[in-house]
């Protein structure tokens, strides 16, 4: 096929990945890596490196969109981003121990079960106002209350245990290294279901965290020369545009639909692990 037609296809693919990824607070690596590996038969190293660049572009562009909407919780984002980094380093060291077939099967099935729960879970009374009362005991470890008013004047008030949030972020960093993904698809459902984050704040903050954590990995990969530059740029250009579409879509959708979109992403990753 003609070179420029292939590039055009990469741009179109980037738009889809950017729009969908931004909508659910993920970078899109869970779609890009399997396509590059299984469809285009790229070497693993190049597929992951190129995907990371696109994830960074998507996350940075998506963060701009959510920043305009006033939905990014920067304080929480910086702390959680910091906690993902040691997890990612330890994960990269443990990857050879945990990446066997049995682990893939167990984790894949768990993801499919989680996605089924997210798809059919009972709806919360309010997406914007969570419980801010500090729970007794360890559940209230480093209890934090946030009140964020977005650009449309909508107020989000919620409370969460920052201590457990940092532990979760460490775990997300660890799992993202094991699975070779950005981690947004684990972070967002956990923030929504375990930490009572409103879906819109969770996706926006996850994107900011992702921009920082993916930038670390992708810059390293770029310097080492593992990135396939032409496809990376074509997909990044598409993802930058697509992320703006995803951000705009997010304004129109309720938290429930965002969670359903997330459940679909979890099924994709789960099935990829189960089917090998």
């Amino acid at each position: 096929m003609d070179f420029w037609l292939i590039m055009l296809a990469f741009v179109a693919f980037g738009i889809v990945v950017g729009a969908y990824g931004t909508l659910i607070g993920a970078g899109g690596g869970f779609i890009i890596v399997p396509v590059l590996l299984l469809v285009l038969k790229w070497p693993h190293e190049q597929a992951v490196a190129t995907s990371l660049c696109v994830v960074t572009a998507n996350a940075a562009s998506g963060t701009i969109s959510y920043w305009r909407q006033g939905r990014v919780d920067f304080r929480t984002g910086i702390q959680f981003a910091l906690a993902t980094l040691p997890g990612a380093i330890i994960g990269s060291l443990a990857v050879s121990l945990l990446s066997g077939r049995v682990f893939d099967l167990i984790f894949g099935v768990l993801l499919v079960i989680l996605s089924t729960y997210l798809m059919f879970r009972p709806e919360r009374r309010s997406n914007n106002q969570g419980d801010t009362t500090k729970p007794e005991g360890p559940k209230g470890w480093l209890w934090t209350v946030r009140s964020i008013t977005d650009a449309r004047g909508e107020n989000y008030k919620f409370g969460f245990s920052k201590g457990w949030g940092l532990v979760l972020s460490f775990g997300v960093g660890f799992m993202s290294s094991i699975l070779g993904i950005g981690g947004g698809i684990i972070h967002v459902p956990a923030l929504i279901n375990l930490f009572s984050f409103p879906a819109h704040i969770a996706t926006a903050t996850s994107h900011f965290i992702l921009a920082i954590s993916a930038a670390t990995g992708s810059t390293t990969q770029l310097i080492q020369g593992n990135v396939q530059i032409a496809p990376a740029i074509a997909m990044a250009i598409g993802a930058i545009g697509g992320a703006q579409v995803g951000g705009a879509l997010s304004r129109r959708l309720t938290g429930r639909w965002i969670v359903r979109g997330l459940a679909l992403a979890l099924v994709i990753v789960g099935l990829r692990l189960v089917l090998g």
Partner: protein
Amino acid sequence: MHIDRATYRWAGIILRVGMYSSFGIMLLGLVWAIAGSTASTPLSYRTIPISGLYDAMLAGNPDAVLSLGLLLLLASPGVTLLASMVTFAAARNWRFAGLAAISAGILLLSVVIALL
């Protein structure tokens, strides 16, 4: 409203400047590559090593412009972190200034290790 107005404002501005400028440079490189590409010299699929970027730019290699655009794009979140560090410090919020500094430090360290 957000309690960290300055951080929020600057983070957005830097991300936007980084995104738009890298987008512009990548487009420029792409147009240059299209204009200059022939059957015998197709656009490269590989990045130019960072050590050779300056020389390749001087030599008029469009791949170098593309690599520079991508590098700028990837650097934007890191620069945002540095700006957050400054704005938090200006607000005397030392704890968050420190956290931003540690995050930026880890990012920088990974770049240095990759360069070694």
